[in-house]
Structures are given as structure tokens and as C-alpha cells.
């Protein structure tokens, strides 16, 4: 499995971070979260993240991961 990580999506709440990570891991895709500085809000904070948090997955699993997240039809 490639160790290069690619940006999958950006989400705007701690709850979405948890859900998406769990969904990906359940599908066998490791996920990294970048930009969610929990700071004073504590590890369990599930509220809004004003500037969003980026979810990264291994490049080799990017296409498969994309099929697991919603996209706005253009």
C-alpha cells in the first residue's frame, strides 16, 4: 500500500470527522485528519470546525474512498 497521502475531502464538524474516519476504516482504508486542532475543546468535541478539517487517505485508495463520500452534482 502506498504511503503517499492524498486529500479526500474537507468536513466541517468533529462528528463528520469521526463518522468519515470510521466509515473509511471499516472499508479497509486508513485515514488521517489534518487541521482539526482540538485544543481546548477536548478529544471528544463533535461540534463545528469553522475552517474545516481535511481527511487524507493513501493515494492508492483515493478512488475507492471517493466513492464513499458524497459529492455535489455539478
Amino acid at each position, binding site marked *: *500500500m502506498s504511503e503517499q497521502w492524498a486529500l479526500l475531502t474537507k468536513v466541517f464538524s468533529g462528528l463528520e470527522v469521526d463518522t468519515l474516519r470510521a466509515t473509511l476504516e471499516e472499508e479497509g482504508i486508513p485515514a488521517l485528519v489534518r487541521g482539526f486542532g482540538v485544543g*481546548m475543546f477536548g478529544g*471528544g468535541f463533535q461540534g*463545528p470546525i469553522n*475552517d474545516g478539517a481535511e481527511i487524507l487517505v493513501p493515494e492508492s485508495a483515493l478512488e475507492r474512498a471517493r466513492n464513499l463520500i458524497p459529492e455535489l452534482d455539478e
Partner: protein
Amino acid sequence: MRLARQDLRLAVRSFTRHRSFTAVAVLSLGLAIALNATMYSVIDALVNPQIDMQAPERLYRLIIWGDYKGKVDNATRASMLRTGMGLYEGLASSSGGGFNTIGVEHGRRYAQVARSVVSPNLFAVLGVHAMAGRLFSDADFVGGAQPVVISDRLAGTLFPDDESPVGVPISIDGTKHVVLGVLGRGANFPGDHVDVWTLPPPTTQLSAIPSNVVRLRKGIAKADAERALSVLSARMAMLSGESPKDVRIQLKPSVEGQFHYVRFHYALIGAVVAVLLIACANLANLQLARGIGRSRELALRAALGASRRDIVVQLLVESAVLAGVGLALGLLLTFWGTHVLESRIPPSVAEYVIAPQTSWRVLVFAMIACVVCVILVGLLPAIHVSRVDPNVLLKAGAGTGANKKNRRQYGVMVVAEIGLSLALLSAAAIVVRTAFQVRQVHVGYDLAPLTDTWVYRPALKDTVVRHVALANEVLSTVRALPNVAEAALYRFRSVVRNAVTVIDDAGASIEIPAPAVGYRIVTPSYFKTFGLPIVKGRDFLDGVPAEPEVIVDKATARALWPNSNPVGARIKLGDFSSTVPWARVVGVVGASERPDGVVGPALTRTPDIRAIYYLPVASDSTRTAARNFVYQVVTRAKSDPQRMPVEMLASIRQLHPDAYVSSHSMEESLGILRRRQSHDFVASTFMVFAALAVSLAALGIYGIVAHSVAERTRELGVRIALGASARDVVGVILREGNAVALAGVAVGLYLTKNTVAWLHAFSVEGDEYDAPLFAAMALALFLVAVLSALIPALRATRIDPVESLRSE
């Protein structure tokens, strides 16, 4: 031994004679030791978390990475994993936690917690025991009663009066389940966030659930097990049609040491150590002063044949007795302090501070603190006093006062006390100021009646969800609730390819980078529900617009259309080449519902582009993916908003029975409550530290000046006899004290400058360097020091010169 007993008797007699000194000394030491031991018990709980699992080093989570789902069915996977039984002595499964929120009720008590669905043998594999009742067995699974195990934390919430929850039915999402047992914090799995454990539905075929928790056999290393499991992953890859390198089985330790010291921990440790040092310096000063004050007694002992060692031992025994009693009091206060602290720690500071745990390590720590005190308080002053020549000591009483050298030695320690106190006082001022700032913050609308509900709805992949149809369905259900005054639905989206496109005044399209901007897809009732005013243009109208409409907040309007009226302008929520539709701006809202610096973790953000709201047209839709379709509902309650989350959970679950739902007050959902609680907690903690430090320092200054006045009685008597006024006498004494206090303030400002950054996480936007505030604290501490010195100085003005000269 006889001499030691004699020294002990002497010490006890001496302390009984000087009750005030003894009380002050024991109380200062006890408080300082208790503060240190309590804080140590918190750090200890973070560094060495209590784990009540049997041989936790052999417990692992089994994770399979790779594209095998849908290609190898669960039953096959479960059966393949069982073939590795030579490696492990137990296999179990656990799923959920984190976002799998459920509503739990008992009587009038309600909690929203995370649940984990586990195999009946999970707790046996973990090797944990119930705190009360019992844990699952196979019989519970086949029995069909669907009992639950709950955490002691949830038991405390639902059964606050120490009533046993065992055997009592509680309601989970409206269905009754009997509590089978209670699990303690050290047995919590798969993490500290889970509060309810349930079994899979009785119709589940257990053998078809792939295990994800393993206990390795004794003597089998993780690396060996992973190597052996690679055979399984290769078989799985073959069955999946994947390359063997793309499917991998990983064993992750179930219990990982994840604690890392951060700057705030250094601030906590520094603060309590400072209090201990202040207490020690204070007592050392008092002992020194007392030792010198007892110079004639010690000189007499020396003259009668006591060696220097005997005098040192006597003074050390006195200090040890003091420290021993201080330790006993300290341990008592630690016991009380840990209970008080435990009941006051908000979950929002769990990263820094968790419930303290008492262990043998805390006792050892308290004893070490005590030994440090004996050395600082007893040994150094004892050696100093014992060095003095008895002849000089005996003659000293005939002079006019104590020598300056002695007073300078007290002064050094008072400088240290004031310096440490100022650093603590400044730290407390910073966190208290921030706590006030957080409390004063207004979001611009009334949060109290609002409830925010998050819905995660399982949906088949590639299902197209129409926003308008979804909103109609959800809102008609929610608005039917008798307590709902208004409701709106919204979703967050990212702009396409990190940019927005607008048409400028000349009619040209301009692409503006917006890497950190998300916009909300909303329903027309959104601003009415929040109570946010439209300051320009109009609100979204009821019904579905012919073309997509957008409302922006004032900051965004200024950033995107600096020289023209934004109302009527066109915007595309994507880059220039994206095919997202153009939308028309119809209004400007006074402020965002999530104003800057008020809610949510503050990270880097795109300057000025803050809030964009998008009203979709009938054809706007989202292509869903498996188990990840999210929407939110905001509701305004007519009355009793506390009850609203329960009503929303029930209502949404009725509409979407398979959805994960989480519902909280808006204040909680925006993180405002957590932020306030965490700042209040840290502020009150540092206020205790600072109050103790300043009181001890004030006491120290008072003690030293009082002692100095007593020593200089003859000198002051002579001065008064020669015509010195009360003002002159106060001036003489305060001049000495002021120099010490000013030196202490200088040291304190230096310490503050170099340590205040440790509180960065609990200041607002990195503004912990506040020179005027530090100057004010320095002035306040200086005034405390002057007042402490003034009391004995005023007393000195009442010295009768005749009496003072006759007393010797």
C-alpha cells in the same frame, strides 16, 4: 537513640510553646504538599492510566486494510480469522463508539452517550470485571432480553443518589433494557468515550461476525503474529482479486500510551512546585529567624558542651517533626482535594486534566515533597545557625539590634517568594481575564431556545437526494412537534476546487481563492430560526426559487464586492471552470451564526470570506455514498428547550429509523459551553494557586518584618528616644522591606515573561503577553508586600524606649 528522643521531646516542647508559629508552619506545608500531590495524581492518571484489563499488553485490535469488502463476505472472513487460533487465545468483536450516539433515560435523568455493540465474549477476552452486577455471557445473547452494561460515569449521571443500577430497566432510544452490570473507567473499551455496551440483535449469527479484538497467546510477539497473519491477508487478497501487497492485517495495541506533555502541563507543574517552594522559603525564613532569635538558647547549649552537630540535629529534628505533621495534614487534604477536583473537571479539558487517581505513587511523591521540605526548611537554616560563634551570639544581645547580614539572608528568600508569587499571579490574571472574555462573548442572537440536531443517514451508494424534497420531508415532521416554533435544515459543503467566482463591476468573472471556505445549503426558514437580521436586500422567501439564491454575511460582502452593492450580484461557489450553477445574491445578513473567535476551534482561515448561505433550486441534488449522508436541523423551542434534544432524537429516528442522530442545545453544539467550562476550570485552578502563593508570600513578609522589628527593638527604642517620629520609624522599616519587594517584583516579571507562554492554549488568540496586566499585578503584589510590612512597622512606633532599653 536517647539523644534523638531528647531532641524529639525538645522539638515538641518548643512547638507547643510557639503555637502560632507551629500552626502557620504546618498549615503552609500541608497545603503546599496537598496541592503538589493532588496535581501529581492528575498527571499520574494521564501518564499511567488505570487499566483494569488482564495482561493488556497482549490485547490488540485487528484491522484489515485493503479493498476486500464486498469481495470476501463476513462469514468467510470470520472463519479465516478463526484459523489463526494458534496465535491467539481469544477472539472477540466490538463495533461503534464515537459517533454511534444513543439517548438514555432513567426517570427524569437523560444522557446522550456513545454505544458499542460487542460480542458476548468480549469482556472475557479483555479480562475485565464488573464494578457492580456482572458482564455478558452467551446466555444473555440467546436469552433475547437484550440487557446492557453501562459505564460508572453513566451510572453516576442516571443514578446520582448511589442507587444501584443493576437490574433496573433504563430506556435506550425509547426501548427498555435492563442494566446487567457496571464497568469502571479502567475497563472501558474501545476507548473512554463509550458508556453503553449492547449485544448484537439475537437474530445475528455470531460466527459470521469477523472478529476485531484479539488476545495473543503468552510468548507470542506482535511482530511474529503479524508475520503469521500475513498468510491470511495474502489469502484474502487472492479471494478479493487484489495484489497481496494491497491487503494487510495490522495488530494495533488496544491500550496505547498516548500521553504527551504539552506546555499547559508544564504550567500546572510549575505552578504547584512554585507554591511548594514559596511554602519552603517561607518556613525556612521563619526557622532562620526563629533560630537566630533563639541564638542565646543555642549559644547556651553550645557553651554547655553541645557540639555543632548536636545543634544541627536538634534543629533538623524540629523541622522533621514539622514536616511530618505537615505531611499528615497534606495527605488528608490531598484525599479531599482529589475528590473536589474530580467533581469539577469538565470533559473539555480531558486532553490536559483528567480525574485524578490515587496510587502508591502519590504517597511516594508526597513523601519526596516532604523530604525536600525538610532539607530546604530544616537543613540549610540549621547549618547556618550552627556556624555562629557562641561568644558572638551571647554578646549580640548587648548590642543595639540584629545585624544586617542576617536580614539580607531573609531578604533573598523573600525575593524568591515574591518572584514566584508574581509569576503565579500573572498566570492567574491571564486565565481569569480570558474566562471573563469568553463569558462576555455574544453571538448576536439568543442561543437559549435553539437546538442543533445532526443526522447521519445510511443511504445506498449513488442514491440521488434532492435537497428540497428532503427538507420538506424532515421539516414537516419536525414542525409537527408541539414545542417547535420554527425549524430549518442545513448542510455544509466545500466550495469546488477551493475557489469562488464572482462578476466584478466591469462584468468580468474573477476567481477568488477560498481554500478554507465552506458554505451552507439552507432552507428559507434558516435566518428566522436563528433570529439573525437581514441588513440589506431580503431574506430567502418561502418556497423554491427559480434560480439558486445566496445570502452572505457583511464581512464576505465587503471582501467580494468592496465597491458595489452585493445584492443582485452573481456568484459561483467553485472555481471559474467548475460547472456549479451561478447563484444570485439576494441579501446580506448582519452576522454569521458562528462569529469569529466565539465558536469552534480557531484555525487558519481565508481572510474575510466568512459565511455564505445557499438556497437550492428544485433540481439541486447530492449523490450519496454508503453510510455518509449528513444533514442538520436547527429548531427554535416555544418553551422548555432542555427537553428539545430528546424530542428531536425521537422524531428523527421515527423518520429515519436507521440514522445516527445526535442532538444538543446550540450552546453545546457550537462548543461555547465547553469553552466556557474549560476556561472557568483553568481560571479557578490558577486562582487557587495564586491565592495560596500570595497569602504565603504575604505571611512570609509579615513574619520577617515582624521578626526584624523584634530584633531591632533596642535600636528603634534608641531612635525614638533620640526624637525619631512615628513616620521616621515606619520609614526605616519599610525602606528595607520595599527594597526586597521591588527586587522580588523584578524577578517575578522575568519569570512571568519566560513562563506565561505555557498558558497559550488557554489565552485568546495568543495574547498571553499583556504588559499592562502584568504591571498591574506587580503593583498589586507590591502593595500586598507593603501592607504586610506595615503592620509590624506600625507596631514598632509604639515601642516604649525606656522599656526597650531596660528589657535586656
